[in-house]
């Protein structure tokens, strides 16, 4: 059994549950008094402003914010209390787009996407479109949360889904600290079950990748060396195999922003992000090749902008009026949270970018 770490900001009725309050934090203080340059000022130094999209490669769809976990640093502020769930009608609109998009990757996320009551129907229908890489971001514990989810590994296999799962550390203490008591054991069990049906094995085409994001107010180390450490520890301790590790930087929004402020780490963290700014990462940030769709069908430059309610700067704002050519004419909306994607080797939902 896993135990909830805390309550969502929404449930707590925290001021930071409001996106405009988060944006105020990101625009005031050290960015207002000039101690640190804004992200726009920074990318102007290398003539990368305004940030513009390249060819669309990834269509990322958030099918709902409901989750069986309440992780400390969740940028979605997901949890069992979140009722924002994509309807079948919006899913049908997404399917029309999936059939016609030039994107080679479809990326389903949440919350726990599996908790959407129409998740399996959506996966079955979407997989018919024959998209090259079909990702489901699974938090692992959902597979063990209830009997009705126990067959998910088989279901994923049947539809050749690429499973991408969060795993903050190879030790119980660090994992449970971030994600709740019991999460480590449930995650290990779920990984073993995925391995048992063929996921993550060296020669297997059933892709299983892990996502690492730091458990506190610090940046991730080099992705390749973290992957080496994860592989060694999970193999030796639990016989678990996986393909790649994506090291993702925590962006200063939502619950992680709340944590930074409450622990008095906000300024130091923003300094660390700005000091680690890498102009080479800007060229490949995920918002340049991704469109993010929210549970209610609105379009965003990325999942983070979705959580800040920064809809695309385009005439096309909703999946029902989707038009890739028109969307490609837009400028990408930025704020200081974007420093999270350009620090060091860069960060995206697919890991490092530089």
């Amino acid at each position: 059994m896993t135990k909830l770490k805390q309550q969502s900001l929404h449930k707590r009725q925290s001021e930071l549950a409001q996106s405009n309050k988060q944006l105020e934090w990101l625009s005031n203080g050290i960015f207002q008094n000039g101690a640190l340059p804004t992200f726009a000022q920074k990318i102007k130094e290398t003539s990368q402003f305004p940030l513009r999209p390249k060819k669309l490669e990834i269509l990322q769809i958030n099918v709902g914010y409901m989750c069986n976990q309440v992780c400390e640093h969740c940028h979605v502020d997901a949890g069992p209390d979140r009722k924002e769930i994509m309807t079948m009608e919006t899913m049908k609109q997404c399917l029309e787009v999936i059939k016609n998009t030039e994107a080679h990757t479809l990326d389903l996320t949440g919350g726990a996407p599996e908790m959407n009551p129409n998740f399996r129907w959506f996966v079955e229908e979407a997989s018919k479109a024959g998209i090259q890489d079909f990702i489901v971001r699974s938090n692992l514990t959902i597979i063990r949360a209830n009997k009705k989810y126990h067959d998910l590994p088989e279901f994923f296999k049947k539809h050749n889904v690429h499973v991408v799962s969060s795993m903050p550390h190879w030790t119980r203490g660090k994992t449970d600290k971030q994600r709740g008591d019991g999460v480590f054991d449930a995650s290990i069990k779920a990984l073993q079950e995925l391995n048992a049906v063929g996921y993550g094995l060296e020669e297997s085409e059933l892709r299983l990748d892990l996502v690492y994001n730091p458990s506190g107010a610090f940046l991730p180390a080099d992705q390749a060396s973290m992957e080496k450490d994860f592989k060694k520890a999970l193999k030796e301790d639990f016989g678990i195999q996986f393909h790649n590790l994506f090291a993702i930087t925590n962006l200063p929004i939502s619950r992680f922003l709340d944590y930074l402020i409450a622990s008095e780490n906000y300024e130091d963290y923003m300094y660390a992000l700005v000091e680690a700014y890498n102009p080479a990462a800007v060229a490949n940030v995920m918002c340049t090749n991704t469109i993010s769709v929210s549970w209610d069908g609105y379009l965003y430059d990325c999942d983070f902008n979705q959580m800040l309610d920064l809809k695309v700067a385009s005439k096309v704002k909703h999946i029902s009026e989707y038009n890739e050519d028109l969307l490609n004419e837009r400028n990408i909306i930025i704020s200081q949270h974007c420093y999270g994607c350009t620090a060091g080797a860069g960060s995206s939902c697919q890991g490092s970018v530089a």
Partner: protein
Amino acid sequence: MSYYDPKDLRKFGDITEWSEELGTKFFDYYGKVFEEGALSAREKSLIALAVAHTEQCPYCIDAYTKDGLQRGITKEEMMEAVHVGAAIRSGASLVHGVMMMNKVNKLDG
């Protein structure tokens, strides 16, 4: 008011402004030392953490605690490294006890 201000660590690079050649040489050397070599960057981070404690340098302790966390080093590993430093430091004091014993033996043996 303390002599040490954690924010000063951010200014470490400014050392170069008052002596560009020496500062640049130092930071080049420093960067090279911590690259992956016969020792892994992870092992070097733990050595640096242990030395930071024997040197009792608050900036270094800040820097290499954070560096260790970034590398996924656990608090148990970090504390063991600190004990290695502490053991060497206390051992260095204690081994001088042999000098004391030698002197006692010579004067009063």
